[in-house]
């Protein structure tokens, strides 16, 4: 039996799922196709426009195009490495098929090959989807020719294999070093810290300065910076060089040698490491957690208001305990904190001071800023609120057999998710309003709007999470990336957009009246803000009602 045969159950499962999907879910596939093509068109359009602009800039245009590709590829490499480390833990140590494979007479090398291939595919598909429109735009703008797709693939395939072999190796060592069963938790904290570090570092470097050459002492300094390879020892640099040399009609096989030989070397080294450490690591990962596990701080019996009815207070307490004791859940807060810092950092450096900046602009920017804040909130809700019903999948029997009303379950989940989201939303909007020194009217409007939007987003997340549950999943982190998660994000963005559009007119009318000293049209204000509030309240109560109905009909 060879490595491909070991993966047969995976192919067959994927095929069966696709067939089942094709039979009864045509609408779902159409939405997927539309969203996919729309996403590709968007990414392609943005990169195409940037490259068209660079192409017309003499001297530094091609350098900027190279730098852009380098930035994209180094981000991809970081993502791939992190993703492979996490995925390898599942594929090599926690997957359900491992008991069968470990007890069967399977050669270690075949197992390594099969699991490495599985890890590579599972970790890389998103990056591949992102890369296709980007590389296509480069090929079209710089006239890559018919051989270009092959060249791009020849550079990209080893670029995917290197982090897969490296990530699998790192996971293998970690599993052998850390206490059994804690590896997953430790890995999630490491991953979140690393991701947070990368985001923070990237933002603090302020890459937008590259687009402002006037900030450098001389043009020579700027060109020198652009010409200097950022990271000559990283595979991302080799892919960049290999592809760009081809686009400039310079035959240079060295980057391809480097990529393929490094990938081969990493796979061989990984195989040796696997042979030496896998059996011990796998055995360790199968041990259950020992007695004496420290239970983290959780709300005591008296810390919740006594006015909460017994069932509801037990539900809320349970939700909080599960969240704060699950490292894979709370560790995402690290990334969240960094996103907020970056968000406020961005607002802090908005060029809204000095001559030429009008009262109108200063007050309209924070209003439009609500769109961005709403998007951040929707992403957070997708991560924390959307999966909450799915996570009850294995314990559904208990809730369903008890006299618990589904309405109580959903409202408990709603409030546990909404209260922190609301504190966060009001906090960041208020903080940015203070930083931007906007008027009292705009502060009131933005805080009021974000409060109502938060309720709507939380309710929508809960509703879509109930209508599209992922009861069978073992990895909570994958739930938000499901079809239902996508539908939730699209709907949430639609609601945010509708609210902003409805409020735009009264806000503009009021600010114009203040700026130009004309009378304020109260009727227009009431109609605009009233309609926006109605949209938010409908988007709060209707989804909860739908979710209750759906949950009552759920059988498993």
């Amino acid at each position: 039996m060879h490595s491909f045969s070991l993966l047969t159950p995976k192919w067959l499962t994927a095929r069966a799922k696709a067939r089942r999907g094709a039979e009864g879910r045509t609408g779902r596939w159409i939405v997927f196709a539309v969203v996919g093509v729309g996403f590709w068109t968007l990414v392609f359009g943005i990169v195409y426009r940037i490259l068209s602009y660079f192409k017309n800039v003499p001297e530094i245009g091609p350098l900027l195009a190279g730098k852009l590709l380098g930035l994209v590829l180094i981000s991809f490499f970081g993502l791939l490495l992190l993703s492979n480390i996490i995925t390898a833990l599942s594929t090599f140590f926690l997957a359900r098929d491992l008991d069968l494979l470990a007890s069967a007479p399977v050669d270690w090398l075949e197992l390594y090959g099969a699991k490495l291939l599985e890890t590579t595919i599972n970790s890389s598909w998103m990056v591949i989807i992102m890369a296709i429109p980007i590389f296509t735009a480069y090929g079209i703008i710089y006239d890559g020719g018919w051989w270009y797709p092959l060249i791009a693939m020849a550079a990209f395939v080893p670029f995917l294999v290197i982090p897969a072999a490296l990530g699998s190796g790192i996971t293998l060592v970690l599993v052998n070093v850390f206490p059994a069963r804690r590896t997953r938790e430790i890995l999630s904290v490491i991953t979140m810290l690393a991701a947070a570090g990368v985001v923070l570092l990237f933002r603090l470097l302020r890459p937008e300065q590259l687009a402002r050459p006037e900030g450098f002492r001389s043009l020579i300094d700027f060109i020198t910076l652009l010409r200097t390879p950022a990271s000559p020892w990283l595979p991302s640099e080799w892919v960049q060089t290999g592809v760009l040399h081809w686009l400039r009609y310079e035959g240079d096989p060295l980057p391809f040698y480097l990529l393929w030989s490094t990938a081969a070397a990493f796979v061989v080294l990984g195989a040796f490491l696997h042979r030496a450490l896998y059996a011990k690591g796998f055995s360790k990962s199968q041990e259950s957690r020992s007695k004496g596990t420290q239970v983290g701080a959780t709300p005591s019996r008296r810390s919740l208001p006594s006015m909460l009815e017994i069932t509801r207070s037990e539900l809320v307490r349970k939700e909080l305990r599960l969240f704060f004791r699950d490292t894979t859940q709370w560790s995402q807060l690290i990334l969240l904190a960094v996103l907020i810092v970056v968000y406020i950092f961005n607002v802090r450096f908005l060029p809204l001071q000095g001559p030429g900046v009008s009262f109108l602009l200063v007050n309209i920017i924070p209003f439009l800023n609500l769109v961005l804040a709403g998007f951040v909130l929707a992403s957070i809700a997708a991560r924390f609120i959307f999966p909450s019903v799915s996570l009850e999948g294995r314990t559904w029997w208990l809730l369903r057999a008890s006299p618990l009303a589904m309405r109580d379950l959903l409202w408990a989940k709603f409030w546990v998710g909404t209260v922190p989201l609301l504190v966060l939303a009001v906090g960041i909007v208020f903080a940015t309003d203070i930083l931007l020194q906007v008027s009292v009217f705009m502060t009131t409007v933005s805080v009021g709007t974000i409060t109502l939007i938060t309720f709507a987003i939380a309710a929508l997340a809960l509703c879509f999470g109930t209508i599209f549950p992922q009861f069978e999943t073992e990895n909570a982190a994958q739930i938000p990336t499901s079809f239902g998660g996508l539908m939730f994000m699209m709907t949430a963005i639609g609601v945010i957009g509708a609210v902003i559009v409805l409020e735009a007119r009264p806000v503009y009318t009021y600010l114009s009246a203040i700026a130009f000293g004309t009378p304020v049209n109260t009727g227009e204000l009431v109609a605009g803000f009233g309609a926006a509030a109605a949209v938010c309240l409908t988007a709060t109560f209707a989804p909860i009602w739908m979710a209750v109905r759906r949950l009552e009909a759920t059988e498993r």
Partner: protein
Amino acid sequence: MIEVRTLTKRYGSFTAVDGIDLTVPSGELFGFLGPNGAGKTTTLRMIAGILRPTAGTIRISGIDLTAEPVAAKDRLGFIPDRPFIYEKLTGIEFLRFVAGLYRQRGPQIDRRADELLSLFDLHEWRNELVESYSHGMRQKLIISSAFVHRPDVIVVDEPMVGLDPKAARILKELFREYTLRGHTIMMSTHTLEVAETLCDRIAIIHGGKIRAMGTMAELRAASETGAGLEDIFLSLTGETAARRAIDVLDA
């Protein structure tokens, strides 16, 4: 008391449970037997209020489960065959949570929970997270949770799976004593010896229909074999199975 009338469950064109009728009076321990895929778990999950019947009615202590689900479930405890529970709660927290679902808490519940944990040798694990429990320990915890709110009726799906001999013995005694105090227990099991010695009455389901029901004496009388429960069971559900196994091994 459990009363089931023309209970039916269909999944598309497949009928899992086909119009069954049964009554389990108060104080009775009722055994529900059948081969794999016969409809046992589906029936029990309908009685526990987890699955909704396609047709028919279920009454728990005289309360219609479909019309008044909350009131009916208030009187019910359920023990599933697979011990899936919240991994990040401790044993005592899980029992308190379950009691909370039945709107009960306070010192009485804590005392009751401690007694149940002690009964199953889990007391020193009461403050450990469930993720550190073995399969059998989880099963014991779930069994404890079904008793913590003192329900009138307990529905049990395969209670002996994963239990050590001592826990199995304790459970049998617990079931016996519980029914002697006027409560009702309906239990499915593949361990025919347990059913034979423990249950007041037994029903055998096959292909979604009840093929036989009564006390052991009544089942023996109705059976042509007139032997033990295993022979009665095999005669009703396919006695050629053992013969086929020998044929396969010899082939």
